[in-house]
Structures are given as structure tokens and as C-alpha cells.
């Protein structure tokens, strides 16, 4: 008898887990379509992969590639964005976590030129798009730097603070890097090294460093003939992207027997901002110094544990295995649409736009919103939650994540403060969920409870989702206002490699002439004024502090039933889970109350409260008419009716009893 039970896994067939690659052997070509063994040049993905796949189609159907290049607008012209944002995508939308501002063409001062954007943020960009094409649509390699300050041909010299011309012909541009996502073990560190060094055209080649096909030489990279056969053909284990590939840029993804090691890194964005970790390993099996570790026997994410890869939900939107059940940009009336790609067409022209939801923080690629496989796509909650009283009401008011992501067990950022600079010239950053420094392995990771914020679900109902909120403070200046450039901040804060004496005098509380981490805070008007004066001294006009709050929705780190929030009193009590506040900041820089960022779909109608220790917390709104929680929320008129009902019932009993007694006595008298 052949055992058939494994076929229950056929659902995930489209993303085969096997290490074996089905991909045929291939010839690595350079941009002139010459074998790299002959030319010795860098591999061109367009020439190599383009032998079979329509790379032009792929690059034009990939938000990972365009990164917002085709959504650019002059500053102040984008609805819902900041006054200085020039795109809705990563290429042009300012991010307080990374701070540097991509300079618009119209700006007089240069902060971040295109080449610097690649050097700085290319680690999380797959290549192509803005790393290859200018904002006007010309190949970057054709641009010549003129005397005019152009952010596409100039970069800022970090040492002098002055603009310099960038030699695109020397650096080359960054092609879309297929290897990064389609190889099991791409060498991302070598790729980043090439990007940071400005050797853009070698970035894709460096990604192959672990394959044995190429090795670093004194002059750059050298192809190793032994990795190829006599025809110059090589075998690469090219395959579907796995979660580990996505994890390179998105989050801490961990597979394997080794205990999970946490290390904070902004390149693992979802881990840094939301504490999300995608791993099948039990939390108790990690190397982290976690509070109550022994009891945390649930996996980091139940879907990772059940062998699901990122692409099972975030699939290519024309993948015939998945897209058939999603009616993206299609009329809703047919229940089945047979007009879809066949496998051959898909392999030639696979869309690299990936199905997505509509999270609170990643408001980009709007056309793909809601295209992904949601919880409801696979789970019939009504069948599994029959134990739940008033189930339908709960399923409407609560997103699955609200109960199934009860707690996050990795630290996440809570506060980013650019109003001061650390000795390394970076913002002071606070984390939630950890006692002590996030850098120290001995610090106790306590975990944290996400705050529940309402967002509209696909059915337009408001549902509560778990979120982190990161509060950021920074200096802005000018009219129209712009964030003060990091260059000027450094000039204001430092003098000859040490803190400027004026800064030390203003911030040094204990008089030891050394600024400790806790002293780096503009928590009094005097300190704020002192830094403001320093900024003015370096030429910043009318600097002022601005604060913003960015909610980040959490959709991973899902736990199964035994670990989910499921006791009635968890929510239906005075200390309801739903109204639990989230600490936003340990102090309030400049006393400036942060504003909720406009471009978010999370409803931030709660209140900000100062805590007794000078911090700031966000308390979700109570008594929201659409989220009225029995046992927690109070309504005066409802309480009044209840009281009247009780009094009325009592009065009825007393009157009725009294009358009965009266009649009984009257009858007794008559007898």
C-alpha cells in the first residue's frame, strides 16, 4: 500500500520545497550577450535569463523593481504624503527610520542623490528601476554629470559635505538581480559590498560568490572555469523563491536545527518595526534570553511551521496556480474565470508583482491591495470557532490576527529620535519588549503586546488588528519645510569627532562632561533651545521639532488555538486587552506631541497620554460605536436603563408582595 496521506500537502505543491532545481543548465552572458567566461565581464541578468524569460515584461511588472520610480511627483504634490515626499514608494518617500531624503530635481541642496540611494538603500532593493533608469526614463549609464547640481548625477561627499559628480559609466547600474530571490543561498553580503563600494555593475555577479562560479580577485571578480563545462555552461540551483529569500530584505527568517539568533538590523524591516520573525522553530528553542522561555513552546509562526512559504500567500499575480481564485481587476460575477495564463506563458512572462494585503505601513502598489491570500481564503473561521459565543459578531469586529497574534516575542522599535545624535551620528532609538540594550545578548527579552487598532477589512467593516506604533521626532527647517540634513545635524552636534562643547554643556546632567545614552534627550525646554541654537549656528533657518506616529500592522507571528487570546475576560473586563495602551516614548523630545501620519489606513482615534515618568503612551479609543465591548465599555444611558430595570423589578416585587400581604390580612380579618 502506498501511503497517500502526504498528498494532503498538495495545496502547497506550486512552491515545491525540494532542494533539487528543475531549472536547466544555462550559459551566463554579459550585457553584450557574450559568455562571461570569454569576456570576463559581469553577468547580465537580462541577457542570461532573457534567453528564456521575458525580462522586459518582468521589470515592468514588478513593484520590487520600480520601487515607486513611476509614481514620482514634485515635493508637496502627493496627496497624503509629507511636504517633502516625492514618491509613494521607497524611491522618494522619506522614512524617519532611515532619515536620508532623496533629493528632488528642484531642490537647491543635495541630500541623497540616486547613486547614494543605491549605495545606502540598495541592500533592500532588487535592482533595476531607479537603480538603472533615471527619473526621465534614460539609462543611468548614459547620464553625464554637468556643472548643475543634479541629484541623479551627483552625490554628497560625507567628509566634505559637498556635492560631487558621479561617474555612471564607471560604476555601471544595477540590473534586476534574479539570483537574489531565485538561488537558495545567494551571497547578499558580497552584493551589498559591491553596492556600497559603488561597483554597481558587479552586484549581480557578487551574488554568485557562494556558487563556486566566481571568486573575488585583486582587480574585482574572476570567473572560475572549473564551475562550467567545456561548452561554458553551468548549473545553478535556480528555483522558486523561498521564505529565506524574502527574509533577506524583509524580516528575520529562520529555518534549520540551529537555535534562532536574534540580531537587530534595519534591513530586516518587519522584525525591526514589528518584531515579526518567520520561523518554524519553537520560541523556547531560540538562543534569545526570553522571559518565561520554557513555557513558550509555540513556533514563531504557525504557518512557517506548517511549511508555508511567503509565496503561498504573496504569490505572483499571474501565477495560474494561485491567481485563479482571486479576482483581481476582474468583474465579480463569474465564480470561475478560465481565461488565465497557462504554465508555459507564465514561465515566460511571470509577473513579479506579488499579491499583497493592505497593511497600515506599506501603502504602496495600491492596485495590488487585497490581492493576496488572506486568512479567510484558507480558513473557514465559522467552522472552527463554533465554541465562540456570538461568533459572527466577533469575527466581524476582530481580525483573525487580533487573537492569533497575542504577543510578540522579539524586540521592536518604539521611538526614533533624530533630534539628538548618538556618538555614531545616528538617531537615539528605543525598543519595546526588551529590558536593557537590544544589542546585548544578556538583555532580557520580555516581549510585548501589540496595540489593537481598527482598520477596514475587505468587507468595509472596521476590525481590530494588532499593531506596533513607532514614534519619530526630527528637526525640520525652511519654507517649505524639509528635514534638516544629516550633514548639518552632524555639524551642529560634533566638533572634531567629539560632541560640540555647547551640546555637552546643554545635555550633560551629571557634570561628567560625557554624554551618556540617557542624557541624549531633549526633555527640557533648555536643552531643546541649546540644540536649536547650535543648528542655527551652522546655518539652519528656524529649526523646529516635528513628531509623527506611524502604525505598523502585524500579520505574521501567528499562533494556533492553544496560544491565542481566547478567554472572555481577556477582552470583556475593565482591563480589556482591547484598550491596553502602548508606550510610545520614554520621553517627549522638545515636548512636541507627535501627529499620526496621514497616509495610513489604521484608525488612530485614541488618545495620547503623558505617563508619570515623562513618557508618552497611546490609549486606544474606548466606546467606539462600532467596537462596543461588553464588560469594558460604559454607556450612561444604557447604565441608566439597566438601573431603572432593576429598580423597577424590585418595586414590582415589593408592590406585588405588599398587595398580597395586604389582601391576605384583609381576608383574615373578614374570616
Amino acid at each position: 500500500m502506498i501511503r497517500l496521506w502526504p498528498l494532503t500537502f498538495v495545496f502547497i505543491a506550486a512552491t515545491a520545497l525540494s532542494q533539487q532545481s528543475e531549472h536547466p543548465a544555462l550559459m551566463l552572458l554579459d550585457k553584450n550577450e557574450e559568455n562571461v567566461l570569454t569576456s570576463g565581464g559581469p553577468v547580465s541578468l537580462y541577457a542570461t535569463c532573457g534567453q528564456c524569460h521575458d525580462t522586459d515584461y518582468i521589470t515592468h511588472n514588478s513593484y520590487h523593481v520600480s520601487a515607486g520610480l513611476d509614481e514620482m511627483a514634485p515635493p508637496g504634490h502627493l496627496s497624503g504624503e509629507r511636504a517633502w515626499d516625492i514618491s509613494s514608494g521607497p524611491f522618494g518617500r522619506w522614512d524617519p527610520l532611515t532619515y536620508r531624503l532623496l533629493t528632488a530635481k528642484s531642490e537647491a541642496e543635495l541630500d541623497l542623490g540616486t547613486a547614494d540611494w543605491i549605495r545606502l538603500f540598495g541592500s533592500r532593493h532588487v535592482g533595476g528601476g531607479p537603480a538603472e533608469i533615471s527619473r526621465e526614463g534614460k539609462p543611468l549609464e548614459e547620464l553625464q554629470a554637468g556643472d548643475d547640481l543634479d541629484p541623479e548625477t551627483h552625490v554628497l561627499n560625507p567628509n566634505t559635505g559637498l556635492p560631487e559628480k558621479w561617474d555612471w559609466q564607471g560604476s555601471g547600474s544595477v540590473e534586476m538581480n534574479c539570483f537574489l530571490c531565485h538561488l537558495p543561498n545567494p551571497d547578499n553580503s558580497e552584493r551589498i559590498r559591491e553596492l556600497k563600494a559603488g561597483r554597481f555593475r558587479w552586484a549581480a555577479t557578487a551574488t554568485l560568490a557562494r556558487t563556486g562560479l566566481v571568486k573575488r580577485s585583486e582587480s574585482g571578480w574572476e570567473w572560475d572555469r572549473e564551475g562550467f563545462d567545456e561548452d561554458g555552461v553551468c548549473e545553478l540551483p535556480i528555483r522558486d523563491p523561498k521564505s529565506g529569500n524574502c527574509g533577506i530584505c524583509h524580516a528575520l527568517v529562520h529555518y534549520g536545527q540551529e537555535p534562532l539568533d536574534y540580531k537587530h538590523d534595519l534591513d530586516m524591516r518587519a522584525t525591526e518595526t514589528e518584531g515579526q520573525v518567520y520561523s518554524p522553530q519553537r520560541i523556547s528553542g531560540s538562543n534569545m534570553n526570553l522571559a518565561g522561555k520554557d513555557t513558550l513552546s509555540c513556533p514563531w509562526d504557525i504557518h512557517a511551521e506548517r511549511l508555508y512559504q511567503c509565496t503561498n500567500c504573496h504569490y505572483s499575480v499571474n501565477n495560474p496556480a494561485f491567481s485563479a481564485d482571486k479576482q483581481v481587476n476582474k468583474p465579480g460575477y463569474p465564480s470561475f474565470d478560465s481565461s488565465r495564463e497557462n504554465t508555459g506563458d507564465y514561465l515566460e512572462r511571470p509577473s513579479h508583482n506579488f499579491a499583497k494585503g493592505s497593511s497600515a505601513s506599506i501603502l504602496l502598489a495600491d492596485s495590488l491591495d487585497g490581492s493576496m491570500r488572506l486568512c479567510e481564503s484558507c480558513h473557514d473561521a465559522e467552522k472552527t470557532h463554533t465554541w465562540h459565543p456570538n461568533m459572527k459578531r466577533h469575527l466581524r469586529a476582530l481580525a483573525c490576527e487580533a487573537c492569533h497574534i497575542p504577543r510578540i516575542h522579539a524586540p521592536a522599535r518604539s521611538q526614533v529620535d533624530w533630534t539628538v545624535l548618538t556618538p555614531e551620528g545616528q538617531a537615539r532609538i528605543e525598543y519595546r519588549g526588551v529590558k536593557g540594550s537590544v544589542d546585548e545578548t544578556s538583555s532580557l527579552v520580555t516581549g510585548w503586546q501589540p496595540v489593537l487598532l481598527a482598520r477596514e477589512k475587505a468587507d468595509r467593516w472596521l476590525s481590530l488588528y494588532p499593531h506596533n506604533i513607532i514614534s519619530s521626532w526630527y528637526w525640520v527647517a525652511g519654507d517649505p519645510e524639509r528635514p534638516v540634513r544629516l550633514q548639518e545635524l552632524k555639524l551642529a552636534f560634533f566638533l572634531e569627532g567629539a560632541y560640540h562643547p555647547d551640546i555637552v554643556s546643554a545635555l550633560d546632567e551629571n557634570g561628567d562632561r560625557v554624554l551618556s545614552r540617557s542624557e541624549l534627550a531633549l526633555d527640557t525646554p533648555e536643552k531643546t533651545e541649546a540644540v536649536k541654537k547650535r543648528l542655527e549656528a551652522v546655518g539652519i533657518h528656524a529649526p523646529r521639532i516635528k513628531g509623527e506616529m506611524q502604525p505598523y500592522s502585524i500579520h505574521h507571528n501567528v499562533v494556533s488555538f492553544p496560544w491565542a487570546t481566547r478567554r472572555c475576560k481577556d477582552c470583556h473586563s475593565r482591563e480589556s486587552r482591547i484598550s491596553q495602551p502602548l508606550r510610545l516614548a520614554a520621553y517627549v523630545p522638545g515636548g512636541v506631541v507627535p501627529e499620526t501620519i496621514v497616509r495610513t489606513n489604521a484608525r488612530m482615534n485614541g488618545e495620547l497620554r503623558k505617563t508619570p515618568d515623562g513618557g508618552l503612551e497611546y490609549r486606544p479609543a474606548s466606546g467606539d460605536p462600532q467596537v462596543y465591548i461588553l464588560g469594558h465599555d460604559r454607556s450612561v444611558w444604557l447604565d441608566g436603563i439597566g438601573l431603572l430595570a432593576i429598580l423597577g423589578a424590585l418595586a414590582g416585587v415589593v408592590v406585588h408582595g405588599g398587595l398580597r400581604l395586604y389582601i391576605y390580612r384583609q381576608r383574615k380579618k373578614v374570616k
Partner: protein
Amino acid sequence: MEKRPGAVVSGAFVLIILCLGFFIIFLQAQAPEQDNPWNRLVKRPPPTDHTYLIKGPLKDGPSVTQACLSCHRSAAKEVMATTHWTWLGHEVRLPGYDHFVRIGKLNSINNFCIGIQSNWPLCTTCHAGYGWRDETFDFTYEKNVDCLICHDGTGTYRKEPGSAGLPAQDVDLLEVARKVSWPSRQNCGYCHFSGGGGDAVKHGDLDGTMYYPHERIDFHMGKLDFNCQDCHWTKKHDISGRSMSYGNDNTDRAPCTDCHSPKPHRRERLNLHTTAIACQTCHIPKMAVGAPTKMSWDWSTAGQDLKVQDPHVYLKIKGSFTFAMNVNPEYYWFNGRGEHYIQGDKIDPEKATPINQPLGGITDSTAKIWPFKVHRGKQIYDKKYNYLLVPKTYGKGGYWTEFDWDLAARLGSEATGLPYSGEYGFAPTEMYWVMTHMVAPKEKALQCTDCHGEHGRLDWKALGYGDDPASSSAWKQARNRKEAE
């Protein structure tokens, strides 16, 4: 009509009681049937106090047995019918043999201390009897049954190593006999935890950490304070359970399903696994959890006066070893039966000879995938006749005193009756030990990704699947299976 308030109150009270009763009955009727292993657990009465029942003096072991038999008249006969006494299994027909055989410690070869023939006095330290010194031992003499080795309740009873199972001189037999009890972990562990010549050596799932285990070592013994007999149900001194080393019939086992439902999981997908996966496969994720177990033993290096004399690395009398702790088992199909090397079977000295290879495969509906410790040995064989030899290691002329392999092989062969050519060598062997103890808490049980996916621990191809069954499309599996065929 006259009002009778007392009657009204009484009536209301009766009504409330009735309502409550109906409500409870209703609730019970509605409650889903739960799998409750506790309902199936054998409950034993407290042991009888023998303090005033046993009269002294008791000069030796057989005297104690005689005292026991004065009341428990059939006990010796019962014991003598079990493998604890005979060291022989039931009659079985092994694959490749056209006749029935009985195999056991009495006549078999293993790849630890190799065999008892010619080494009786030391090996029989763990026999449930007294005086098995040589092949002339009388298996019918009731007074030679050792009751105390299993029923000692004091924890002081012990046998002198090399004394053919006689009690040590310093044991107060009268005191021990008066304090007899139900067998405990100490009684069973005395022999079973130290099989192979030391603690944790042989089994991989039985060692001294189980005398007083933490639940991380063994959930049943640690968390629930089980004794061996709670699972190894015993009738008339016949203890259920079947060792892989000599058990070639699939009877008298102590399966998990004695207490647990065959489909015990809340999740249907896990229950689907139970047709092909033994409970132990997921619930014993690691072997030798608390103490290292011997993974290999190379006899060919013995006899050297090396500086290293470490029972976990090298001993002159035994050769070199490797030990491992908290390691993943190996996984094979197993239908409860196994092949077995019979003395005189030819071997290929260039290949590892499986001594007790488990039987079963993907097409065998009775087989499941089980976890195994595989002990890899290198042991003496006859170069001319190409069969494994039992060397005399213990006692006069034994290898442990003379360090002469030729002499040891000659003396050992005299005991086994197999011809010895005078030429010996060392050949690799493998012995399989199925893991059934050291059950981890469910929080430590294997998860999907422990077996499936890129980092899974199962060798799916070797198990006959062609590819990870959770991995790929049906066509790919079909293709791989075809290729395998």
C-alpha cells in the same frame, strides 16, 4: 385550602435538585467523548508488608526463593516461562530461513560485548536467577529463580559482577525479603539502564537518568511518576514489551495504544500521520537526552597501552568508542519484526553486517516509520569461514586478561560449537535499537518542519518516497518513484 408554606419550599427544593440533575445529565450527554488514558491505566493495590511473614535466617538467594515459594507456589514456574529466565524468545521463522528458531541472549551475537557463551559468569549478573556459570545451568530448578532482583523494595539488593547472578555478600537478605514490593524503576533499571557494560551504553533510550527523571527526560516517568509496569503490563510474571535486539515476533508489545487512542490528536492532519508514523517518531525527538550513549564500538583497536583510558573514548580491554548525547535518531520502516544474524551466518566483511535489521517498507501496510539508535560496531570474525565469532573476554584465558584475540576466539568457539579456522579479522556490523522510552513532553515533539522541507531529518528517498511527500506536485513524486524503480 389551607396554605402550607413548608410544603411549597420542599417542593421547590426537590424541583431545583431535579433540574440540576437533568442539567448535569444533559451536559454529560453533550460532552464529546474524551480520550482519557488514565481510564486505561492499571491500578495496583499497595504491596503487602512481608515484615512478619518472612522468618529468618536466610543464608543465600535460593533460601529466599524457597521462603517466597512457600506462599507464592506458582511464581517460580511463571518466571521460568519468561524470557527473563530463559533468555530465549519465542519460536520464529526468520526471513531467509526455512525452519523455526528461538533466539535470545542465550545464543545470539550483538555488537557490544558480543555474546554470553564462554562469558556466562559476568553476563548472567543480570539474569533473573542464581548460578548460571556455564552451559550446564539447570533451567528447571525453581529455587534458582531470583525473586529479589525484581521485588527488592529497599534499593540495597545487588548482584556481585562475575558471580553468575549471586547476591553480593553484603546484602542483608532477610531485610530485603521482608521489604519486598512491586517492581520499581530501580529494579528494572538495575539491568536495563546499564546494558552493554555501563550506564546508558546500549539502548539510547534507557539510562540512569530515568531513575528520578525530570519530565524533559521522560514525560511519563518524570511528570506523571510512572513506573515501568504502568506501561509494561504484567501477567503471571510475564512482562509485556519486546526488545528489538532479539524480538523477531510482533507479540507481547507494550504499545502506546494500550492507554492512548490510536488517533489521539486534536488535529486531523496529525491523526492522518498515524497510519505511517509510529507515535515514538514524533514524541521521541532525541535519544540519550540526559546521558551520552554509545554510538560505535571498534574492538579492533583493543589491546593497546594508550595513555587514553576513558570509558567514553578508549579502553585497552574493549577498544575505542564514540558516544553521543541528545542526538537525532535514525528512521526506518518497522513492522515489529526484524531479520537477525544467527551464529554461523556468512558475512561480507567489506560491508556492514546488520545484526537485527528491522523489517518493513513503504508498501507494507503493517509497517510504520520508527526512530532507531543504530550502534555501529567492528567486531571479530573468522576470516576463513566468514562468520562472526563470540570471543571469550571474561575469565581465565579471556581477552580482558590475556589480550590474545586468537586464544579468545578459540575458547569462545569451543563454547559456541562453531569451528574456528585460526584466522580472525574485524568486520563492521550494525545493530538497531528501536526508541520507545524517553518520551518528550508534547511541547518538544517533532513539528512539520522537523521532517518536511529543506531541513527535515527524514531521508525520504531512502524510505521509499522518492521525495519529501510534503514538497512537491504529484507528477514530480511519480517521476521520482519511477526513477527509483
